[in-house]
């Protein structure tokens, strides 16, 4: 089957060779730039490279606040989770990966999650839980290295989900900004 | 100007039966009971064009005709003496000076409607007045002006003096009935209306003290005499109580339709310290305020309605140019916040909200949109509740903002009161 993409090439393009050389010049431009640029980096002389690709396991990128990593529970200054086990994330989760058992607490918030588990083997990182959360208690962290060979280990319990507020401040500010627009 | 209600107030001992009889008392009741049929009495009152003096100005004769005929069920009169509206103190004067006038009016009213028991619901704070009234009732019983077979006409009538426990809302007729019944004083939902389902579920008519006081004079002098006094639609004299920044505060009996400006400057002697007049509340705290430019108005129901206020109980509150209108609003809204029975959502929450917004404006927390918010809240409170207290709380605020919006805006802008001489809260 011939697909007509309605591309009309000029004569210059149709003789093909010049375009090939143009392509080669682009790629070899990169090649030589990197070849020379690498030498100091390889010799541990100069850590600053001109290229932006990161050498992933050795170097870690600092994700922008909009990045959605694994969902975690925010721990407030008083050392307890913000979550009040309202169950909204549980119902909104399209992958049905959140399970909460609420219970009563003596704290002012009255209600807290006795157990809170996220099945990360099912989580699709859609961020609905974060969006729906009325207490800004569950947020998407920037942790993404969560692959595991054992499904049981992917079943995150409450103590694995608790992360202190300071570490998540950037994301908290960000979601306040973007979800704040809708005037909930 | 012919005085009839307060004619004898200055006579020594006017509250006693002896002096009352000497001044021609109980002539009207004798005439009514012996010479007239009940329907004739009602017809006479209807013809006279007497309107209720409790605030709403409902034609009294018409109200009396609502009462069902016949005697299958007991019927009651409730006399509303729960005079708790700020600025109002006319009924108190009547009871203090000539309680027999009221008793006579009640006897005639009972006769006209075929009622055997009247309840005078007197405000809880009127301790002395309640005693005077009770004494007068006892006197009347002693002379058989009350009780069984009055004037040998075969008509029986009892009067009970019931003291309230101090709630503004019990001045509302259904609230009054609840209170008389011994329940928490809060208005009843309507329907059923009191004429069909009142005290203990029986037909009941509620009228103001002053309304009843007019009745003997109408019977005595005839409806035509009464009609000549006052204006066409609001006949008769009424007692205006004038208070506030005025040289001679007090009660003045004047015909309906008397000019407000004359009342302030001629009768009551003008503003204190010869200050400039700023605003007048013409009919008790629940009516809308009138600015100084609008005081040249007749004091009757229709004229004041046109001016955007209402006659109410004829209690004129005068304010000179040292008054801060925001503070006026705070004082009024605090009163209604305190006195709301808490039954209807709009009134319960609205009165407290208005008070809080005004306090915020006074204390420098106000925002530009607060004025519109006040109007909106007042609009939501108005006319949507069981009784009129919610309206009464909303109107003064609407009036204040309508006429003195600039002052509110100044408050919000400067964050503090711009009338330093004004009273402290």
């Amino acid at each position, binding site marked *: 089957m011939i697909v007509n993409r309605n591309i009309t090439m000029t004569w210059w393009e149709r003789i093909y060779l010049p375009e090939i050389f143009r392509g080669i010049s682009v790629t070899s431009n990169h090649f030589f730039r990197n070849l020379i640029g690498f030498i100091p980096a390889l010799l541990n002389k100069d850590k600053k490279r001109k290229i932006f690709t990161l050498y992933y396991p050795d170097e870690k990128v600092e994700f922008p606040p909009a990045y959605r990593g694994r969902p975690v529970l925010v721990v407030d200054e008083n050392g307890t989770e913000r979550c009040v086990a309202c169950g909204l994330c549980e119902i909104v989760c399209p992958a049905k990966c959140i399970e909460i058992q609420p219970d009563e607490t003596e704290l002012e918030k009255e209600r807290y999650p006795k157990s809170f588990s996220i099945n990360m083997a099912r989580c699709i990182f859609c961020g609905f839980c974060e969006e729906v959360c*009325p207490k800004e208690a569950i947020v998407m962290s920037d942790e993404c290295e969560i692959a595991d060979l054992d499904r049981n280990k992917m079943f995150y319990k409450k103590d694995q989900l608790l992360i202190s507020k300071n570490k998540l401040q950037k994301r908290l500010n960000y979601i306040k900004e973007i979800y704040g627009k809708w005037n909930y | 100007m012919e005085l009839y209600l307060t004619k004898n107030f200055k006579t020594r001992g006017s509250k006693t039966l002896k002096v009352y009889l000497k001044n021609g008392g109980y002539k009207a009741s004798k005439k009514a009971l012996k010479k007239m049929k009940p329907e004739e009495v009602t017809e006479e009152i209807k013809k006279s064009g007497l309107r209720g003096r409790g605030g709403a100005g409902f034609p009294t004769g018409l109200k009396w005709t609502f009462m069902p005929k016949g005697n299958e069920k007991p019927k009651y009169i409730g006399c509303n003496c729960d005079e708790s509206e700020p600025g109002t103190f006319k009924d108190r004067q009547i009871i203090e000076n000539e309680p027999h006038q009221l008793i006579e009016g009640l006897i005639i009213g009972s006769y006209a409607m075929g009622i055997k028991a009247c309840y005078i619901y007197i405000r809880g704070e009127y301790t002395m007045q309640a005693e005077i009234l009770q004494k007068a009732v006892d006197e009347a019983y002693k002379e058989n002006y009350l009780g069984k077979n009055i004037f040998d006409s075969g008509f029986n009538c009892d009067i009970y003096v019931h003291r309230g426990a101090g709630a503004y809302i019990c001045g509302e007729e259904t609230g009054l009935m609840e209170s008389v019944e011994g329940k928490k004083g809060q208005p009843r*939902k309507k329907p059923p209306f009191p004429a069909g389902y009142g005290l203990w579920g029986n037909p009941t008519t509620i009228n103001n003290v002053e309304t009843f006081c007019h009745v003997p004079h109408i019977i005595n002098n005839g409806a035509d005499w009464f009609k000549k006094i006052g204006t066409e639609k609001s006949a008769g004299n009424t007692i205006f109580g004038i208070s506030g920044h005025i040289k001679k505060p007090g009660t003045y009996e004047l015909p309906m339709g008397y000019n407000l400006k004359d009342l302030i400057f001629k009768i009551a002697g003008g503003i204190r310290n010869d200050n400039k007049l700023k605003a007048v509340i013409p009919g008790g705290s629940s009516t809308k305020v009138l600015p100084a430019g609008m005081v040249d108005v007749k004091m009757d129901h229709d004229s004041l309605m046109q001016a955007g206020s209402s006659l109410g109980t004829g209690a004129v509150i005068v304010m000179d140019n040292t008054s801060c209108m925001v503070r006026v609003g705070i004082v009024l809204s605090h009163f209604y916040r305190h006195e709301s029975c808490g039954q209807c*959502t709009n009134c319960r929450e609205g*009165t407290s909200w208005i008070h809080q917004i005004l306090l915020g404006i006074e204390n420098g927390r106000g925002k530009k949109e607060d004025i519109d918010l006040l109007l909106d809240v007042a609009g939501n409170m108005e006319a*949507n509740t069981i009784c009129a207290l919610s309206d009464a709380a909303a109107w003064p605020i609407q009036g204040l903002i309508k006429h003195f919006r600039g002052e509110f805006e100044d408050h919000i802008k400067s964050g503090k009161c711009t009338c330093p001489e004004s009273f402290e809260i």
Partner: protein
Amino acid sequence: MPTFTINGKEVKTEAGKTILQAAVANGVRIPHFCYHPHLSIDGCCRMCLVEVEKIPKLTIACNTPVTEGMVVRTNTEKVLKARKGVMEFQLINHPLDCPICDQAGECKLQQYTFEHGITHSRFREEKRPGRKRFKIGPRVVFDEERCILCRRCVRFCREVSKTGELAVFSRGDKSIINTYPGISLDNKYSLNTVDICPVGALTNADFRFQVRVWFLEETKAVCPGCSNNCSIRICHRRGKVYRLLPRKNMDVNKVWMCDNGRITHKQIETSNRLTVPLVKKGNKLEEVSWNEAFDTIAKGIQKIKNNEIGAIGSPHATNEECYLFNKLIKNVFNIKNDIECIVPSWEADDLLIKKEKAANPQGAREFGVKTNDTSSVKKIIKGNLKALYIIGNDIIDNSNTKQDVLQTLSKLDFLVVQDTHNSDLSSIANVVLPSATFAEKEGTFTNINGFVQKTNRAVPCPAKAKPDLEILSGVAKAMGRPFETIEPDKVMDEISKNVKSFKNICYEKLGETGIKINN
């Protein structure tokens, strides 16, 4: 029958109805908080304001009777503005703690807020503080901040339970609901106030914070607490029952339910639930398979002469179970002795609670079971009975001479106990058959007034336990004479053919609220 117009549609309604009732009957929704069809009208919430032609002000629909030719509009701009205003007033002092509040999901305030699209608050002042988590009664928790003062609970206590513990105290914005000094909200029907509370002010202390209501599935069932058989809904999730709620049934319980009935679900998950069939081997009860248990029963029964076998039924069993037990005893075991049963009792009242504290004593009587008869115990003492088949353990639990009865029963050669829970009785049995509780089986109950209602299966039986119908058919099969059917609806067809008083009953006719049997 006055004819009136609502939203441009001309409809007829019964005389004396209010606008709200007529609107509901004609499918027009008018929001309301304080109005409840089974309580008196209060008219204080001001939510149901509607516009009626010729009345200048808006009027409340719940208190205005419909008159001939009335023209009502429920969706004009004026009405919507008034409603929005009322909603705003309701919300200004409301804590807005839906994430915490257990009413979320079935909250009228939440629903109407959503419908009216109120997205932000103009209230900038301090919210009115109130008592949180106040135990207003032993079973009811009160949250004053959430209360919207609709007074439904006050009216319920005055008019339905007639105990009158509650009242509105203070006035204006300081109004609070409270009990009269010195007493608490402790009557037999106190949890109904939780049901009728339109917001989360009154909550069930038992159910609080257990599960979100939107996760709950509801199964229509019948309360087994007493012989009144209130219609209920079983609220359950993932095989666990969380609460029982009343279901509207004007013939039986209207919309109410007693507090005792609401805790009947606690028997489902207790530690002493029987979950596997047990057979006595030597002196010990051992876990066996169902087939082994059935075979043991068949062998044990066959060894003993027919007139030496007795049967004690259960007043808790469904009609179908009573019938099949009858059939098992009379047709399969060929026993001439009457089936007996003991009905526990308690104090009755004139609202819902009936004297017989069992789900189906009336049904049992219809099938010829003799209630409150202990002649078999006497027969054992005389030595006339050697074997006994017992369903339930009422014979022990409701006897004053528990130990004596136990001793007498232990003399038997062969004792079969079919029960839901472990008890002294099951410990002396030769065969113990674990059966299902009310939430785990399907069937019909006949209440004391003869109303037959259907109850449905909400949760599965724990472990190996089986519904009684399956157990009875298993025994019959082991005896070599299996039943034709054990499907509850087929069994009922059989009953209506064979039992005179059930002639008019079949599952299709029962509907949700049941019908009365012919007496």
